[in-house]
């Protein structure tokens, strides 16, 4: 009696494939928002410790991306946008991605806990677990509210950066969390409006697939109408100056205009071109980046003036 043992071919995956596995563009946004949380936190952190925290957060985010690609390899293979990823394209074995992600996650959390502090490490662990288990393995395939709830994972990094400095929580990082949290639905639903066929093919219950494009456009507008004023809260609460306030008002206004155009596009004859949705998606990335960059600029400007005034 012969037993067939599956042969595992030696891996041909290169370093570039493993880097792609970590979703570097998502990683850079995570590191940037965490960096802002770290900079605006009160008190002082030694630059080396701050850098260590950011490295750990980056590696943790990469680990979460790798684990997501491990689990979602099947649906990634069915969507045009993601079929070229390392696992669906056959360059990297799923088990390798799993081992890679778990190892990186473990190291990132432990090193953060040992060298920085336990609160930040716990938040990083929670972020990874939430993104991988709650969002990727559970919500993504089971509810149209998947990215709304799952968005909490992407909203935590500024809180991790803050906790790396202060060892605790405060209203300010929670506001930053809320801004990213309410930014996530319009951002991803704009994308899913012009990628609906992909999600139908993959069987992912994104809002346009489940509730239709019209309802999705309405929801994008509602979330954006809430998000735009929310973006000004750091200024209203007094811990960001007018530089930030003006930027938040202007960029928020643009977001609202784009959201109205997304909704209007649904009733027009050019709806299938999804131009407004693509513009909304592209600008939403710029919006978040600008908002957080202005927090930095505002903080640095304040420090500069304080330095010269003293």
């Amino acid at each position: 009696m012969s037993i067939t043992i599956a042969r595992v071919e030696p891996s041909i995956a290169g370093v570039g494939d493993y880097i792609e596995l970590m979703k570097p563009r998502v990683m850079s946004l995570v590191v940037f928002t965490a960096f802002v949380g770290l900079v605006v936190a009160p008190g002082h952190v030694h630059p080396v410790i701050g850098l260590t925290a950011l490295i750990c957060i980056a590696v943790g985010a990469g680990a979460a991306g790798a684990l997501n690609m491990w689990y979602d390899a099947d649906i990634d293979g069915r969507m045009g946008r993601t079929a070229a990823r390392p696992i669906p394209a056959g360059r990297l074995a799923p088990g390798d991605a799993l081992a890679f992600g778990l190892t990186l996650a473990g190291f990132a959390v432990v090193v953060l806990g040992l060298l920085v502090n336990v609160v930040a490490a716990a938040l990083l662990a929670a972020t990874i677990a939430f993104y991988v288990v709650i969002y990727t393995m559970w919500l993504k395939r089971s509810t149209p509210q998947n990215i709304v709830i799952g968005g909490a994972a992407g909203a935590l990094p500024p809180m991790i950066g803050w906790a790396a400095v202060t060892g605790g929580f405060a209203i300010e990082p929670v506001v930053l969390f809320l801004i990213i949290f309410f930014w996530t639905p319009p951002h991803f639903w704009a994308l899913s409006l012009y990628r609906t066929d992909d999600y139908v093919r993959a069987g992912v219950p994104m809002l346009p697939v489940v509730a239709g494009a019209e309802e999705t456009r309405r929801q994008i507008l509602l979330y954006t109408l809430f998000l735009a004023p929310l973006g000004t809260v750091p200024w209203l609460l007094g811990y960001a100056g007018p530089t930030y306030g003006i930027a938040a008002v202007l960029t928020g206004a643009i977001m609202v205009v784009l959201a109205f155009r997304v909704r209007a596009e649904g009733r027009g004859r050019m709806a299938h071109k999804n131009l407004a949705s693509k513009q909304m998606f592209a600008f939403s990335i710029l919006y978040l980046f600008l908002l957080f960059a202005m927090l930095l600029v505002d903080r640095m400007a304040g420090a500069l003036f304080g330095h010269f005034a003293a």
Partner: protein
Amino acid sequence: MAVGVTMNDAADEQKPEPGIRLTEQQQRARRARSIAIAVSLGVLVVLFYIVTLVKGPGVLDRPL
């Protein structure tokens, strides 16, 4: 009389595997991965060293 069917293991006997031979591409990929792992571990070592210098004697002293 029925002829018993014997398990013929002869056909299943395989010559000893010659061992896994990596192709050129697999070798290059493995080398690149190994170097990346070595560099990452080196960075980790350097990081621990610098943080130890920065934090002084009480390396594990940190706010909870």
